[in-house]
């Protein structure tokens, strides 16, 4: 019954979305006051998808094996939390989550938006309904999560043990919230293009959504990177895997949008450009979903290979992106460009930021999709990995980081002050970092060396906007910007240190033997069998020391039974200045064990930087929301909206 209730809720929601779309067309043509009705429909639609998702959670929590999806992806012996998380750890469940977030976001847009005109809101709600309708059709026709099995089997097929991890419970939903949050920016842009009301009001209505989505994408990418680092046991934090790129591309587009939207909000300029970025940002989310969900890529994350679904998703992508760009081509040229600005101005700085981000985005996009094109056209198989992305996008990212220090110092409209004086201290710091690395580590590669230089410079330059003013009177949005930009410097330091100074040891050790990795001496004590709820393992006990103190690490080689799989569980110990990362491998006939040890100085800064960037976004969001609330309380409030 529960599964059927979920399915019914989905069908109803799809019907409401169709109605919402029809109402939008009618309202725009005849100037009907349909806003109220559409707001209620959007809210009910969001509620219905929530019900459907709750039903899926219930069948997973109960391990109802008569539901095909539960049989395929769950098992009665699985820990409860992973039973529930398993609901969205598979194709159908994750698409249901996607649609749920899409509709709930639409409901919030309908209920909360007071800033746009009624006409634009109606058009945006229509666009959101059109998006939702396509994905409802995809679920109901090609990926029904509630399909039944008759007779019901006795036991489920389990879940990939690699995915039995707290990372799974939070990582995909966080990314999905981010992806789908961008749908609101897309719908608002489409709506505003339809009504022609592209102005700073629209930018202010759009900004909290973009910021929110961007924060979640940042957190999702950071968490995903850490998950891959400790779970996959390869010691790397970013593999340029197509699935990772699928989350990076919307992030790059959203970052560009986040900056250009400020120009539109503050100065009314860059109208067409900002609308296009809003369209591109959500298009990238859909490209990401297509890449992950169609299973067309060779990837550690690829789950299913199902051409029917892939074609369906590709068709949806083509329709939405094509329609949005068509609309843009039709209406974009008629937008009046806003306030002019001079060559040296914050506007120009943000334009350069946008151009660089777009170039990086295009490079990642081409590199990710190139193997598909080549294979489709010539049948030749190839893969594009870290060597391409690091060499081509890396220098551009460094250039961008260099400019991040300058942009916030520029004034709107025109800059006449000799502002480069302020950058003396940061520049000196950068140069001394460079000199230090040349003296202390002459053999270092060029990219990490430049990375450390830029990081040292940016760490100082990013806080300049707070210098010379009382820090408590600076707006929260300024604080947010400073924290996020500082976070870039922190992450960059971590990446450069990790690339340059990681020491790795791979050897056979017998119990009692000592290996060294960087400053560490690691002794293998013994290897003993151990067991968990649905796995058995061989666990090595390692004693590590560097001078004083002794730490114990217990990496495992785990064997899961349903389905039969082996995984390496790394043991990682974190110190203020780095991480000791250990893996145990296979037994040697002579009684030794394969051990892989890494000492990774300051590697944790990578994720700390990511967290700071997200925190900066959160501060800025808080600042904007506070102003929104204050403004609502005082109808005559007229202040500058930073």
């Amino acid at each position, binding site marked *: 019954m529960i599964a059927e209730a979920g399915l019914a809720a989905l069908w109803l929601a799809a019907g409401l979305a169709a109605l919402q779309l029809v109402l939008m067309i009618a309202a725009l043509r005849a100037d009907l006051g349909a806003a109220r009705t559409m707001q209620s429909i959007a809210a009910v639609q969001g509620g219905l998808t929530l019900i459907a998702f709750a039903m899926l959670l219930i069948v997973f929590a109960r391990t109802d094996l008569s539901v095909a999806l539960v049989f395929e992806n769950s098992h009665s012996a699985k820990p409860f939390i992973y039973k529930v998380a398993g609901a969205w750890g598979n194709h159908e469940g994750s698409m249901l989550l996607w649609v749920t977030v899409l509709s709930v976001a639409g409901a919030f847009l309908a209920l909360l938006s007071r800033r746009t005109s009624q006409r634009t809101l109606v058009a945006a709600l229509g666009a959101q309904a059109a998006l939702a309708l396509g994905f409802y059709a995809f679920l109901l026709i090609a990926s029904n999560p509630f399909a039944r099995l008759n007779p019901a089997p006795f036991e489920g097929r389990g879940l990939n043990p690699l995915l039995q991890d707290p990372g799974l419970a939070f990582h995909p939903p966080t990314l999905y919230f981010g992806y789908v949050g961008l749908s609101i920016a897309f719908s608002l842009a489409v709506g505003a293009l339809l009504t022609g009301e592209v102005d700073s009001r629209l930018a202010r209505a759009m900004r909290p959504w973009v910021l929110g989505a961007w924060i979640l994408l940042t957190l999702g990418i950071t968490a995903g990177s850490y998950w891959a680092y400790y779970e996959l046991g390869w010691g790397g934090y970013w593999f340029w895997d197509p699935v990772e790129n699928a989350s990076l591309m919307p992030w790059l587009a959203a970052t560009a949008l986040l900056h250009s939207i400020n120009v539109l909000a503050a100065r009314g300029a860059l109208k067409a450009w900002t609308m296009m970025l809003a369209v591109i940002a959500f298009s990238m989310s859909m490209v990401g979903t297509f890449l992950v969900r169609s299973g067309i890529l060779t990837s550690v994350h690829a789950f299913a290979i199902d051409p029917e679904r892939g074609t369906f998703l590709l068709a949806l992508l083509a329709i939405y992106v094509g329609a949005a760009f068509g609309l843009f081509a039709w209406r974009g040229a008629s937008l009046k*460009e806003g306030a002019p600005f001079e060559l040296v101005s914050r506007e120009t700085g943000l*334009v350069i930021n946008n151009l660089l981000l777009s*170039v990086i985005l*295009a*490079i990642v996009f*081409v590199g990710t999709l190139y193997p598909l094109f080549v294979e489709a056209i010539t049948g030749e198989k190839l893969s594009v990995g870290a*060597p391409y992305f690091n060499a081509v996008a890396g220098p551009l990212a460094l250039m961008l980081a260099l400019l991040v220090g300058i942009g916030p110092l520029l004034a709107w409209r025109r800059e006449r002050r000799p502002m480069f004086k302020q950058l003396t201290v940061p520049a000196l710091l950068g140069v001394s970092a460079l000199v230090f690395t040349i003296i202390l580590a002459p053999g270092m590669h060029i990219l990490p060396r430049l990375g450390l230089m830029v990081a040292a410079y940016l760490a100082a330059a990013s806080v300049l906007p707070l210098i010379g003013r009382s820090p408590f009177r600076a707006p929260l949005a300024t604080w947010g910007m400073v924290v996020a930009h500082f976070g870039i410097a922190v992450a960059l330091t971590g990446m450069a240190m990790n690339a340059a100074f990681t020491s790795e040891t*791979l050897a056979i050790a017998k119990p009692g033997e000592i290996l060294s990795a960087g400053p560490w001496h690691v002794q293998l004590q013994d290897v003993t069998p151990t067991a968990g709820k649905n796995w058995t393992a061989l666990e090595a006990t390692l004693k590590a020391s560097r001078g004083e103190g002794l730490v114990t690490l217990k990496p495992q080689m785990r064997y899961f039974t349903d389905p039969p799989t*082996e995984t390496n569980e790394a043991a990682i110990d974190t110190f203020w200045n780095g991480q000791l990362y250990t893996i145990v491998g296979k037994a040697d006939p002579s009684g*030794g064990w394969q051990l892989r040890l890494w000492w990774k100085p300051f590697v944790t800064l990578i994720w700390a930087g990511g967290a700071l960037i997200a925190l900066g976004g959160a501060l800025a969001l808080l600042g904007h929301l506070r102003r929104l609330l204050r403004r609502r309380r005082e109808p005559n409030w007229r202040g500058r909206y930073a």
Partner: protein
Amino acid sequence: MKPKNQRLVLVIAATAAVLLAVLLAMWGLRERASYFYTPADVVAGKAEQGRTVRLGGMVERGSVQRLADGVSIRFVLTDGEASTPVLFRGITPDLFHEGSGAVAEGRLENGTFVADTILAKHDERYMPPELGNLAAEHKAGKTLQR
């Protein structure tokens, strides 16, 4: 700047950026994309020496040999037609077995494939698409032999 000129400059800048991106990407891809080969391709001389490529096939039964240092292995990848010896230093991935599929990434050096990374079948259900057909053929071949 007049708004009209401003828009023109923006359009030109955007176009230049896109062109730059495409040129950079093409240059990067030409130098750095790694091609996928099977042992038959290697025997036919399609794989360039010294360039990073991927080699995929089935791990030949009885071919996995552990070297004296304990952490290097030698094995043979085969696609039924031809086979290539592979040398790998590292901990083999979880699902690396004799008789199952694997993709090695590395370079061809004097007839031996020196692998930096080995990607094995990820779990019971997942198989890299490049290996999917190969595995099916392998199975079919075995059934015929029986």
